[in-house]
């Protein structure tokens, strides 16, 4: 209690400080709301499409055999432990969000090395039964390394996003587009 009191600003400052803090907190929640950041805590693929620039990947995934068994996060975030999962998510999320806001995204998005490693581990996570013959693994020293050391999509080039990658590559796909946060009347008022 004493500590809290100690942290409080001197009396004359209290109102303005509260006001400013309130604005910041409000803004934070507004941003959190409007960018649907809350949804990033979930694994729902639709949330990734909050940014329309993720649409091509959504569309291609949605037409792949992996649609039935995987969501984006099954592949794109680590699943070795919960902390790692959210740490990676937050780190990636921050970069993506800031690049998006600053319009820094390239026309053709390439997965980064860190992201590659994560996806690759996830392919193995699901398919290890197929890749690793227990008989061979027990008798052949490097079998598990040799069966998994090469990036899977070097051969499985179409899994799961196909081969054509660009912000504009799937223009007519039915992607759950975010509703416009601008009310119709405002749109009309702004038009012309």
């Amino acid at each position, binding site marked *: 209690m004493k500590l809290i009191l100690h942290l409080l600003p001197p009396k004359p400052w209290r109102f303005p400080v509260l006001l400013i803090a309130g604005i910041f907190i409000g803004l934070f929640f507004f941003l959190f709301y409007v960018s649907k950041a809350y949804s990033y805590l979930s694994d729902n693929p639709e949330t990734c499409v*909050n940014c329309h620039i993720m649409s091509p990947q959504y569309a291609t995934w949605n037409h792949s055999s992996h649609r039935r068994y995987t969501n984006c996060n099954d592949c794109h975030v680590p699943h070795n432990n919960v902390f790692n999962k959210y740490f990676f998510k937050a780190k990636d999320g921050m970069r993506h969000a800031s690049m998006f806001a600053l319009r820094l995204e390239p026309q053709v998005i*390439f997965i980064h090395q860190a992201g590659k490693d994560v996806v690759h581990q996830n392919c193995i996570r699901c398919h290890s039964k197929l890749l690793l013959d227990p008989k061979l693994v027990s008798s052949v020293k490097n079998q598990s390394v040799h069966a998994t050391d090469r990036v899977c999509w070097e051969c499985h080039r179409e899994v799961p996003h196909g081969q*054509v990658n660009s912000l504009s590559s799937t223009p007519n796909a039915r992607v759950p587009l*975010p509703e416009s946060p*601008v009310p119709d009347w405002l749109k009309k008022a702004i038009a012309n």
Partner: protein
Amino acid sequence: ASSVIERRAEAVFVNVPKTEVSQFEPRNSVWGENYPREFQSYYQSADTSFASKYNGSQMIDMLEIDPRLVVLWAGYGFSRDYSQGRGHFYAVDDIRNSLRTGGPTNETDGPQPSTCWTCKSPDVPRMMQEEGVSEFYKGKWSRLGAEVVNPIGCADCHDSKTMNLHISRPGLIEAFERQGKDITKASHQEMRTLVCAQCHVEYYFDKHKAEGAAYLTFPWDKGMSAEAIEKYYDEIEFSDWTHSMSKAPMLKAQHPEYETYSLGIHAERGVSCADCHMPYKSEGGQKFTDHHIQSPLNNVANSCQVCHREETAKLIQNVYDRQDKIIENRNKLEELLVYAHVEAKKAWDLGATEAEMKDILMGIRHAQWRWDFAAASHGASFHAPIETGRIISTGIAIVGETRIKLARLLARKGFNQEVSYPDIATKEKAQEFIGLDMKKLKEEKQAFRQNLLPKWIETAKKREAGYDKKVGM
């Protein structure tokens, strides 16, 4: 926050056309009022700063960097002036400036027919519709100088009502018809290539089709390979010119871009010209086509990397590797052809007869045709490297056989030694060697630019000022 709101909203934003544009509107800026993104990107083709290893958006004086060309084309317009071209924006400027179009002094003067305008401007469909197609192809190039003034543009490729891609030139439609193909059945993806195939194709002027007309014709009736076209020309005994040294009845290949592309793996996999040269672009959720048509090497990210997950430098190196491997042998063939022309001339000088020369001249014709087919298509060594390499090989084999015949003939005429290779180290030396009076040609051009050209521009300005729709940008 505002930028996030804005960017989310982008995806839903829709554009509505403002201006009514007629199909025969030749001015790109008028179309551009409705489609500013496309228009702006189109005008980027005015930028000539990009250079790749062999191509790019600057003009390259090919005779300067490779004077052997002068000898190969002796007796023909190309020996005066030939450049690796630049963007669509310059199409009209460049045909005016080229020494190949000479220095006409009035509208019935000059070395070229009006047909030369066909692939240079959206004023062409306008005039064809006004005059009729055969009429358009009649008379001199200078006849239409005041009419054709806008560089290649929207009306060349688009239907003004729907903005669908359409074919604005009769040559391609007629060629398809003669092959029994119906161009109106082309798919959307095929159209993304066929609009280019209106112009980036080998052609010749048929003088027999309509009285007095140099009727633009694509020689594809027997197929589109180098051999099939060669056979077509042989059967109708067509030749573009007679070589001034060897006297061979020559063929000139002109930009068979579509023909060679068609035989490459990208065409096989359904990749269109527009996929590489006009890739889609997305700006704020709005997808549009980049109308800055240029070498894809200036835009690897949007063109190649859409399909290839490789680094830019590596993809560029892939292109250069292919070009290097092809051009190595193309250069060799070129050198052998210079020898052949010089040796044939020597044979004539030593009194060879028509009968003795007949096969030899056909050999030179065929070998040079194949060389030209591979060389005139600036993209071919990448578009279809395997086919282009194949064609060059056949050319080298033919010129080899021909020079053996020449060696025997020369020996028979008492000259059994190497014919010395001419000193053609520079363009100037080569042009002098084949007997061109370049000073005169340049002066004529200069006079044309000072006297006739300004009048053309003046007349055109007046005409356009009278159009219904005023330029408002």
